[in-house]
């Protein structure tokens, strides 16, 4: 079989990156407060139980376990820090990091002084709310929830013109893949969060995996729209504690945006697949700096996608996951465990254990904009015969932020899907360039090299265009 330009058609047609950010963003963001909101007017650390700023996923995402729809801090980060041209004020630390010929084109940053905008205290914010509300210009978030907010609730004005704490937030996420002469959608997500009263949020994320016409005709699995996430959540409790119930992906390890990584795909954590979604309950807390997420759930069998809209569509069997660790400002470590118990016909029992960590020397060394993360997973699974075996996978990635909005990436995957079997392991290397020219737009190009234990080494060039709000 001859193969020419279309090196990754098969791969990419079955790819569908999920609307997740990356733990790398969180790891980088501890350099300065202004990544997530305009500089504080006066700053005193709130009591630990009330502190919202930490390195955990809930700082930027509606879902405290990470991924999907961003909250106001996440949106501010996407406008101020991530792109080459900022549409919210650029953090002072990054003023001298603009790419050549792009320097100081963003009109949102004054570049002559760091002028904070937000109110000093929550009480002051409430007094100024009318005035601040008039200044808001946020077409993707509306209203203010009823009821009494938590102490040090989200301050209007702290996120420039974004609505800090909306009743209704609508998002959008579109990923396109480019292959030779083909451009086609990989993923479309439309998340909606409703926050009618303080401490209560409903989130529904409706999404579809990408496909081309050929793929739809030949692949038997359903790729229509479905609820990727659908849950109700009680949150904004002391120590950022929460409880949510509904459909979600269990919290385990690093929530990578590259779902094809073996640390996701081999352990039923591939965020692109409906089969990875479970229905259950998750609790968690994130006091500075420890964090804990724990879930109990039921799921469809390993080879069956659950119902598109029926989040109660599960088979026999159950699972449970725990994810805990410590996220300091320049490093973090964590450990995860997950078990699934079900019959052989439904995929068999699995037990998975993971260790992961992130290092961000950039926080301490301004001339070293480097971030590194790794995850090592191992565990047992049952083959279709009923016999148990073990599998191993790990992932490591380094990012170098050359300029604002321009990042070089080097990643390495390894997997041994069955430790009893000879010659089934693979290494994969990726060399990539990520460019975010403007808020809500990221171009990601990667040269990927697959080195199987036997046979030929394979390579491809994969380009992804990501648009989000």
């Amino acid at each position, binding site marked *: 079989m001859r193969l020419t330009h279309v090196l990754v058609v098969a791969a990419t047609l079955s790819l569908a990156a999920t609307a997740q950010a990356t733990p790398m963003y969180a790891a980088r963001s501890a350099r300065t407060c202004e990544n997530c909101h305009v500089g504080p007017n006066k700053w005193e650390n709130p009591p630990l139980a009330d502190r919202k700023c930490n390195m955990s996923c809930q700082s930027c995402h509606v879902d405290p376990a990470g991924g999907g729809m961003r909250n106001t801090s996440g949106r501010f980060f996407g406008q101020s820090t991530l792109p080459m041209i900022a549409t919210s004020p650029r953090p002072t630390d990054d003023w001298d990091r603009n790419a050549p010929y792009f320097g100081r084109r963003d009109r949102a940053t004054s570049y002559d002084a760091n002028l904070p905008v937000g109110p000093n205290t929550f009480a002051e914010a409430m007094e100024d709310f009318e005035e601040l509300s008039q200044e808001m210009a946020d077409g993707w978030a509306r209203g203010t929830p009823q009821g009494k907010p938590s102490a040090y609730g989200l301050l209007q004005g702290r996120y420039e013109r974004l609505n800090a704490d909306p009743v209704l937030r609508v998002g959008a996420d579109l990923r396109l893949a480019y292959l030779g002469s083909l451009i086609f959608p990989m993923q479309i997500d439309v998340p909606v969060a409703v926050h009618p009263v303080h401490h209560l949020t409903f989130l529904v994320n409706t999404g579809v995996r990408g496909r081309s016409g050929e793929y739809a005709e030949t692949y038997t699995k359903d790729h229509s729209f479905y609820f990727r996430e659908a849950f109700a959540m009680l949150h904004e409790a002391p120590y950022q504690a929460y409880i949510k119930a509904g459909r979600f992906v269990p919290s385990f390890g690093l929530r990578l945006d590259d779902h094809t990584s073996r640390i996701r795909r081999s352990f039923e954590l591939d965020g692109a697949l409906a089969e990875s979604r479970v229905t259950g309950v998750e609790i968690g807390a994130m006091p500075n700096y420890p964090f804990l997420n724990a879930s109990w759930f039921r799921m469809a069998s390993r080879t069956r996608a659950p119902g598109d809209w029926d989040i109660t569509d599960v088979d026999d069997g159950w699972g449970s996951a725990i994810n805990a660790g410590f996220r300091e400002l320049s490093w973090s470590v964590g450990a995860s465990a997950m078990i699934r118990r079900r019959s052989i016909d439904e995929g068999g029992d699995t037990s998975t254990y993971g260790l992961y960590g992130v290092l961000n020397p950039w926080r301490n060394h301004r001339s070293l904009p480097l971030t590194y993360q*790794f995850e090592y997973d191992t565990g047992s699974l049952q083959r279709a015969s009923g016999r148990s075996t073990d599998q191993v996978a790990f992932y490591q990635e380094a990012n170098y932020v050359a300029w604002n909005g321009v990042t070089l990436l080097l990643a390495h995957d390894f997997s041994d899907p069955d430790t*009893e079997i000879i010659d089934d392991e693979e290494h994969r290397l990726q060399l990539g360039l990520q460019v975010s020219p403007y808020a809500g737009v990221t171009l990601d190009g990667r040269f990927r090299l697959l080195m199987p234990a036997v046979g030929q080494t394979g390579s491809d060039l994969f380009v992804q265009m990501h648009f989000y709000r």
Partner: protein
Amino acid sequence: MLKLMCRLFAGVAVAMMVACGSGDRTLNEVDPDVVAQKPSFAQVYPIFQRDCIPCHTGTGGGEEDEEDEEDEAGKRNRTLGVEPGLESCAAIINNLEDIVEDVFIDNNMPPGAWPRLTTKEKLTIERWIDGGTQCD
């Protein structure tokens, strides 16, 4: 503390780069019951559907097929440089020699950096071939 973490993470990175697999036997030797001794085409076809047919659409192309007899999908595949179509049992059998070479000898399909077929998938195809490539 940061220095300690830097050293620790550097050690992890190096250890991962030099990792290698374990195991010294084939799946057929370790767990012969994991796949039916004589798989049906119904058990084989989903493997082709997932890993091959997204590119190898239609039934035309390949050594056994004249270009002027190709179906529309086959012509498109030829334009894209992906041939033959493998969307039927007959098309798979017609191109079995190439399939064996790519999947079992060169281990280069699916292409690029896409994960290759699993040992279980390969064993299923191997036993189907050994069983006489029945299409029923």
